[in-house]
């Protein structure tokens, strides 16, 4: 096991150990997170399914699902991508493989502890920043700061002259995550209350998506597509536009999450306009990646990593069209607080970002373990179960949200909305369960890759070898 290297000399630890440890941890958390999601969805469709205990009450499990997926699956897949991609782009080794391993172990332990406490009901009562402040500080100390130090030091000690796009995003996002995490939880350290607290809650929720998940996922695509297709990035300058517009535009519209709360009107108007400007980085990113694919579209069909990445990039189109416009006053009044938003959040995290991270984990684990993927069939099955399961979820929740919106503006008795939504709740549960089952196949496939995948000869990339099963 990888744990035996925790006390070894840094030089004695094989290259990529931390990334492999992170990769498998991420898949396991993905399984836990989606399993909880599927269980919760079952309870919304069939309220008497597992009932009468505090432990399996919906209100105790909902936030565990959300945080397991964000800080377990997505963020650990990011850490995996950073520990694998950052050194390669700097033509060097990871600054400290040992710090990476400790980071991963402490990350797993603190997340497990935090989520168990949260499951028992120990919460700050603030969505997305649900951890009480001592746990917030543990997250900063054991999760985000060691990761950032490792990434920055690897970039500083690089052996190339320039810094590639992916690494700008990695360096900036790890920095912004620390700031967002420490500032977003200020209400807990200093007991800020009332609207300030509510606003800060959504400031955190907005920025953890905008300055951490979205840019890092995009950075992965900036690496995977040129690397696997062999095409150079279409435009470095569009990459610049993407980077700077993320920093300037995506960091400002936090108040659009509270459009119907009594926040200052200037703040809501400002946030709404800035929210539309999210389309600038979005269009820059999508066009840049799709144009990089020129002449290599056959790989969209033939290569698993490219297929995952391009699907993620294509899902960024509806994601940002929704994201840009649904927060304007003219649309927000209809869909705010409905299932539409739940569908949108899953489009961002399970659609757009999960597909990009899955590509990074597939590519990274194969490259670092020097093993070709065990089974293409299982890989395809994973892809299609994930895509169909996600689409079922997204479409059914979008419809449910529109029904709920109509019910809201015509002020029909709420129970009629619940009755009308019932079939879509069942569809959502089926979709979520498909996603959950796909992760089991994936974990098995990656485990077998480690054990029985064909050895990749030195100097070769995984996609240069044929699939065998």
């Amino acid at each position: 096991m990888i744990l035996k290297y925790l006390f070894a000399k840094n030089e004695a630890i094989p290259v990529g150990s931390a990334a492999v440890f992170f990769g498998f941890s991420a898949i396991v958390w993905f399984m836990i997170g989606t399993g909880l999601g599927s269980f919760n969805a079952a309870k919304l469709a069939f309220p008497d399914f597992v009932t009468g205990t505090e432990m399996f009450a919906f209100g105790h499990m909902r936030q565990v699902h959300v945080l397991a997926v964000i800080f377990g699956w997505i963020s650990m897949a990011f850490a995996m991508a950073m520990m694998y991609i950052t050194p390669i782009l700097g033509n060097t080794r990871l600054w400290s493989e040992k710090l990476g391993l400790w980071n991963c172990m402490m990350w797993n332990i603190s997340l497990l502890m935090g989520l168990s406490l949260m499951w028992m009901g120990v919460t700050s009562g603030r969505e997305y920043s649900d951890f009480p402040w001592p746990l917030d500080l543990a997250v900063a100390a054991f999760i985000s700061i060691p990761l950032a130090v490792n990434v920055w030091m690897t970039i500083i000690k690089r052996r190339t002259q320039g810094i590639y796009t992916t690494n700008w995003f990695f360096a900036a996002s790890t920095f912004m995550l620390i700031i967002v995490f420490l500032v977003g939880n200020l209400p807990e350290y200093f007991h800020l209350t009332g609207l300030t607290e509510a606003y800060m809650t959504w400031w955190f929720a907005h920025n953890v998506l905008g300055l951490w998940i979205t840019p890092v996922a995009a950075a992965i695509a900036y690496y995977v597509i040129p690397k696997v297709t062999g095409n150079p990035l279409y435009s470095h300058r569009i990459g610049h536009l993407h980077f700077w517009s993320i920093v300037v535009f995506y960091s400002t519209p936090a108040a659009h999450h509270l459009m119907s709360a009594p926040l200052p009107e200037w703040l809501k108007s400002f946030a709404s306009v800035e929210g539309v400007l999210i389309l600038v980085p979005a269009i820059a990113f999508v066009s840049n990646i799709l144009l990089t694919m020129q002449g290599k579209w056959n790989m969209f069909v033939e290569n698993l990593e490219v297929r995952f990445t391009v699907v993620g990039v294509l899902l960024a189109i509806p994601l940002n069209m929704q994201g840009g416009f649904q927060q304007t006053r003219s649309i927000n009044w209809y869909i705010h607080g409905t299932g539409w938003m739940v569908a949108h959040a899953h489009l961002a995290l399970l659609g757009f970002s999960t597909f990009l991270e899955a590509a990074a984990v597939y590519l990274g684990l194969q490259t670092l373990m020097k093993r070709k993927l065990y089974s293409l069939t299982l890989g395809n099955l994973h892809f299609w179960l994930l895509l169909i399961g996600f689409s079922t979820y997204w479409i059914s929740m979008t419809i449910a949200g529109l029904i709920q919106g109509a019910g809201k503006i015509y002020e029909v008795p709420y129970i009629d909305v619940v009755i009308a939504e019932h079939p879509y709740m069942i569809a959502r549960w089926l979709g979520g369960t498909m996603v959950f089952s796909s992760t089991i196949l994936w974990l098995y496939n990656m485990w077998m890759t480690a054990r029985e995948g064909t050895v990749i000869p030195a100097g070769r990339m995984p996609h240069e070898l044929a699939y065998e099963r």
Partner: protein
Amino acid sequence: MNFREYKIGSRMFGAAFALSMSITLLFPSYDLAASVVSEVGLDKQLTSGWDSGWQIKDPWLDGLNKPLKVLVRKDPKTGEPMEPVYAYVYTAGTSLPNGVKHHHNLGLGVEELSLNQGRIKEAKIEDGAVFLIKASDKLLDFEDKPLHYIENATATKGWAPDAVLKQAADSDILHAGAGKTMFVREGCWWCHTLLPEQTQDWQVFGAPPMLGDFNGESPTAFGSDRKGPDLLHVGSRNASREWMMLHFFNPRLVQPHSIMPRFDYLWGEVDADGKKIDFKKWRSEYDEYREGKITTPPDVPMYAKDSEIRNLIDFVVNLK
């Protein structure tokens, strides 16, 4: 890092990020800090006390460190009958509410009144305190409503916390503060918002909250993703404790299409008479009722006075 471009880039990044942070954090903070607390806001913060999420004095969210909202019918000092009034009783050792500790949060006008006429500075955690909400003769600048402020009745009237609790019947004591903790811990706010929207919702869910209605409340538990009705004014629509009791024990008893979970586990081990509650038997009888084998559902046990569900029902009924 010897590329000139990266030095420029890092500085540009710092400037852009700092600008964005000041617009989204600094300016709104000044604006929100200037809000003046309303009567509703005072009632909320005095009812729910210091915090309803995780706090050092209540690490497992059991509803500890919370005040009681008491309907006072007799003057606790003289025993004379008086016009009934709600008092917020902080027994010795209970953390004082946010507005008393951080009184600048009360806003212009209310802070001075609470300090000078309300004498809130004299409240001590060690001795406990009783607070009242008082209307002043000052008017709010932009509305034709009087400013309300906090009065420390322990200082102004000599009402000791124990004396207030002694004169009150159990049905006049609301455990709404501890109930807010239950509301947060049980995740009620994952499905029920406490925020009727400004653009609609007026007819069914009531008026949306105003600017000063939140000062001192933590967490606000607005909720984001509505899967059940808004609850901000639910106590005005339905104040029946019997209905609430049936509905919490098993929502399908009163609303067959409800998807709300059962909260029967908040009853604890025993009912109001101290008898052990047989949940297993209740559930099997309920299943028979659901399958049509018996015509009436089993009776819901009356909750004990100190059960968690009592706190939660007090909180919900108090949401006026």
